């Protein structure tokens, strides 16, 4: 026989050779000192390797599975010992099994509400020698993998209640605001009808309907129409802050409308509409005063007049644009500038409407067009972090240092950002957002 290879020697040591083979190898080893030496080596390696692996035995004291198996099954069939090996720490015999780490899938099943089907270790899984159970027909594979379908079977009442309360609060606030504007009207209804109900109507505006209902029988007046002119007037006057930015005719129209509306019921014979008309006039009064000639010193109006009459972008030059941006005009390096325009912020979505926007138009070598809008935000003198945070107009939806990437309906990407010095920029182009982002690096 030729020399025996290491594999065979190991097979012999591991008892994997049958009788005849083993005898043959042993005979050779007895005769061949070289193979006998290698056999010694193989034996040593085998034992040493086993010892080394033994070092890597989990250190934590364990309940031997033999013990766990030997332990008679406690309780009904469904309460078999789940964890024969305690994860850590000594476990007194008879103590209930310690934690079993849950797998993600098991947790998913739990969430699904099918905890009794928790597949980690079925409590009644057969022991050694027992036949495998027939698959439970109601326990389909689909149920084990609930991630394929929405798992929100049970409504979360706490969340729903919370959401409902938020909606309710907003609704009440809105109504309260609404009625507050028409409150005087409502109150005046109460004054004439039943003074007692006045305070209720004024203090609890939301309940004014009830107050009116209470007052109605006494006054014998149609109370509902009386409220309408008030709230309508309030509605018309509602957007006053917006209108105050310098459009005179609409405002006057609004006042006229309000007066008219308030006056209409009065002519119809509802006596208490008159105070509402007065109120409407009162509220509207400061605005026409501001709009009157000679009062043009008001900042908003001054801006409105300085601006081109028609709110469009006007061609200008780079110097003018830079001046508008307090000297900092950023350009895209390496691209041909096509035009420089200035226009009102109201025309650029996301820009601050009270400030002008400088628009640079570029043509890429590939023919794609780019548009870089810039705005200089009014800087707060106080440079503390809080003051700066306050100074960022909420319309921007950006904080200092933020970048926002949006994709328009036609696939055009837009990157908006606000740098730390209060320079707002918007780069828009009909190209993928990534290309656009790459261009950001070239803006100086």
């Amino acid at each position, binding site marked *: 026989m030729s020399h025996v290879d290491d594999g065979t020697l190991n097979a012999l040591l591991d008892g*994997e050779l049958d009788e005849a083979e083993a005898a043959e190898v042993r005979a050779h080893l007895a005769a061949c000192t070289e193979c006998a030496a290698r056999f010694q080596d193989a034996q040593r390696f085998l034992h040493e*390797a086993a010892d080394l692996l033994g070092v890597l035995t989990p250190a934590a004291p364990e309940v031997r599975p033999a013990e766990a198996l030997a332990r008679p099954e406690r309780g009904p069939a469904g309460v078999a010992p789940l964890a024969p*090996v305690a994860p850590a720490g000594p476990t007194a015999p008879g103590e209930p099994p310690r934690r079993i780490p849950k797998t993600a899938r098991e947790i998913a099943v739990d969430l699904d509400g099918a905890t009794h089907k928790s597949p980690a270790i079925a409590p009644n899984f057969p022991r050694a020698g027992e036949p495998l159970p027939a698959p439970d027909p109601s326990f389909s594979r689909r149920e084990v993998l609930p991630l394929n379908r929405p798992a929100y079977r049970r409504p979360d009442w706490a969340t729903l209640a919370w959401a409902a309360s938020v909606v309710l609060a907003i609704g009440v606030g809105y109504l309260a605001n609404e009625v507050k504007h028409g409150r005087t009207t409502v109150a005046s209804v109460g004054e004439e009808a039943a003074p007692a109900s006045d305070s209720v109507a004024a203090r609890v505006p939301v309940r004014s309907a009830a107050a009116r209902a209470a007052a109605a029988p006494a006054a014998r007046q149609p109370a509902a129409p009386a409220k309408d002119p008030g709230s309508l007037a309030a509605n018309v006057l509602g957007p006053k802050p917006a209108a105050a930015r310098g459009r005179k005719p609409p405002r006057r129209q609004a006042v006229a409308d309000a007066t008219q509306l308030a006056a209409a019921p009065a002519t119809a014979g509802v006596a208490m509409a008159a105070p509402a008309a007065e109120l409407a006039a009162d509220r509207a009064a400061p605005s026409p005063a501001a709009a009157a000639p000679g009062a043009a010193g008001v900042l908003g109006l001054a801006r409105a007049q300085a601006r081109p009459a028609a709110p469009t972008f006007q061609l200008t030059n780079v110097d003018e644009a830079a001046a508008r941006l307090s000297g900092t005009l950023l350009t895209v390096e390496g691209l041909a500038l096509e035009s420089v325009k200035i226009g009102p912020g109201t025309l650029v979505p996301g820009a601050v409407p009270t400030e002008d926007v400088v628009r640079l138009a570029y043509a890429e070598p590939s023919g794609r067009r780019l548009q870089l809008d810039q705005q200089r935000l009014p800087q707060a003198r106080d440079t503390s972090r809080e003051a700066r945070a306050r100074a960022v107009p909420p319309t921007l939806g950006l904080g200092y240092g933020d970048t926002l990437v949006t994709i328009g309906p036609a696939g055009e990407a837009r990157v908006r950002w606000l740098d730390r010095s209060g320079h707002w920029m918007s780069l828009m182009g009909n190209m993928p957002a990534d290309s656009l982002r790459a261009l950001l690096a070239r803006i100086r």
Partner: protein
Amino acid sequence: MYAQHYESLVRLLYRRTGDRDRAEDLAQEVFVRALEAPPTNPRPWLFAVALNLARDDGRRAARQSRKLAQYSAEQEQTAAPAADEEVERREKTDAVRAALARLSEKDREALLLKAEGFGYGEIGAALGLAPGAVGTTLARARRRLVEGYRAGEKRGHEPR
């Protein structure tokens, strides 16, 4: 099946991953899979799946451990001085683990399966080896593990 193989599986996975918790989690995962598709011959199936999971897990863990390696090295230096035997034991564990990690995947897995009492036929089936090749694989694995460990020890004792 669970009670019969759990400890053995955890031990193998612990040796393979070096992390007790991960070994237990992987063992659980193995049984979950066994439950989804009950194998006809559970033992080799369980261990084959376990080794597969450990392999995947190892790849994931390797990426993380590279980042953690430096951190843990720092931690070890600042750790409170442990008892001499404890230090010695930990050094030996680390050395064995390192030696095991230097083996090829097949050698390591054959060794681990053998340590769990697998026969050559079962090892061959689990690792896709011819039965005749298992002895050779094991012979090489054992020698390399021992030699790797000794080499590591020698390096460890040399002044750094």
